[in-house]
């Protein structure tokens, strides 16, 4: 038997341990609550005011809604992605850096319990952030989801996906810089060109083709479907893509945690 494989810790049997991790992650969020709550609110207000209400007033309706209302789902995704990825990756990186993650590693906590703990905390944080942005949207441009279950489903999936990516990169990062690199050079640009500000129908054909390879496009499109009831691609395609990406990222995060990549020597 390969001993490295054997050290992998699967199974579910310590719900109290899992709950402790969720609580610990939320305590960590609460300690920096001003950093968590205000940036999404202020950024969203600025985007809606500048792009939506001033410039947007010269743009005709898109998918049956005003441009300002069209922006809201994309802004929700932007903030949920940022909040889940950066929180989880820095929590794990700090835990590794200061060794405090060992408190969990020496305890009877399986990889499933650890990953699930981070995911549940990230989903709760993601839902909180999404509600804040949603509230701004409701107040300023009177837009709310028409399809609440779909809104919740997409938000939960995207929070899970970026929590998993946060785990993966929090484990791989050797310096704090490495975490920021992914945000700055990959996530943020992809979200911006992923249909937050404009529909694909306004884009030249070549860019439209390229956009289809951008995973963020499907997240924004699926969430917008919950608001407008229509999208650039069929809902089955966008939701299917988001679900598949989430399952893959979650599986990789689980496997890495079970093998103890950069956790257990």
């Amino acid at each position, binding site marked *: 038997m390969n*001993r490295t494989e*054997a050290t992998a810790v699967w199974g579910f049997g310590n719900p*109290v341990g899992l709950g402790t991790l969720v609580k*610990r992650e939320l*305590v960590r969020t609460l300690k920096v609550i001003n950093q968590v709550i205000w940036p999404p609110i202020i950024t969203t207000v600025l985007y809606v005011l500048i792009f939506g209400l001033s410039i947007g007033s010269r743009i005709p309706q898109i998918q049956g809604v005003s441009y300002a209302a069209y922006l809201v789902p994309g802004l929700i995704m932007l903030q949920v992605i940022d909040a889940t990825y950066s929180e989880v990756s820095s929590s794990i990186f700090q835990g590794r850096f200061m060794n405090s993650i060992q408190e969990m*590693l*020496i305890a*009877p*906590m399986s990889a499933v319990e650890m990953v699930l703990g981070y995911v549940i905390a990230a989903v709760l944080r993601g839902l909180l952030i999404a509600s804040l942005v949603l509230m701004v949207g409701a107040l300023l441009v009177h837009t709310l989801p028409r399809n609440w279950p779909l809104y919740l489903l997409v938000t939960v999936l995207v929070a899970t996906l970026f929590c998993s990516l946060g785990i993966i990169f929090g484990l791989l990062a050797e310096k704090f810089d490495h975490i920021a690199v992914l945000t700055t050079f990959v996530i943020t640009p992809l979200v911006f060109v992923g249909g937050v500000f404009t529909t694909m129908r306004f884009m030249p054909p070549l860019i439209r083709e390229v956009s289809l390879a951008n995973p963020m496009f499907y997240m924004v499109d699926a969430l917008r479907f919950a608001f407008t009831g229509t999208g650039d691609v069929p809902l089955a395609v966008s939701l299917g893509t988001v679900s598949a990406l989430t399952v893959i990222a979650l599986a990789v995060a689980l496997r890495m945690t079970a093998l103890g990549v950069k956790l257990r*020597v």
Partner: protein
Amino acid sequence: MSANDSVPALKIEALSKRYGEFLAVDDISLRVEAGDFFGFLGPNGAGKTTTINAIVGLASITRGSIEVFGHDNVRDWRTSRTLIGLAPQEYNFDRYLSIRDILIYQAGYYGLRPREVRARADELLERFGLTSKAKETFVKLSGGMKRRLTLARALIHQPRLLILDEPTAGVDVELRIELWALLRELNAGGTTIILTTHYLEEAESLCRNIAIIGNGRIAAMGPTEELVTQHGPATLSVTVDRAVETLAPALAARGARRDGDPRTLYFDGLSPAQIAPTLAEIEAAGYAVENLEFRRANLQDVFLELVRR
């Protein structure tokens, strides 16, 4: 049933741990009986912390097996981990939690609910003199308090095997004595203790059994007392009133030797009971004893001798 038949607290069989080309632990086997106070000694880089990491699950095992109270630490990892409390060498506390919460959350990872452990957490804080700092974070603690917190956290889930990696490194004499007393008390209460240390006097004073590790292998293992007598004989040195020109046959028979100072005689490997007859023979040979010194080997000698090999 004698103690030797009962399940050992720790059984390591043919453990090896390889990091790439480097063999950090090379085929180690050892057994620590339940209730023992066991010392794990060796120079830096000898493989002590690697072995501990393998026991607690922080390092994977290349070859061999580890059982904690009969539970394999890979197949039956949940039980094995629950039975162990680890006080690591480096501080690894959660900076977002208060001192009291550090204990309560650690218990949570072991599957214990806050309401089950609050009273115990407060009791440990009291016992380790941390009550006044219960609401602070760990950065506000003094060095000694951090050490005590390490120990309190290791004990929160009432482990049967307490593993301490250099518990008194960088600790002043007063606190060291205080920690020793705490450890003796815990051991007397039935907790099996394994500690690694650089301070040989610490191992000699606390541990009933020791293993000395060097270059990833066990150089010697056994009861502390036995190892000391086996590897480092006692020496009696007697200084007399004048230079010893020729050794009387009776003294030569006792193994007397001279070394430098012509007025001093050395006798190696003497037991304390042989001191008086030896002195009588020196006087019978016509010398007056002016000074004498009986030096028993200590762990330092054993250690140096073994590690030099």
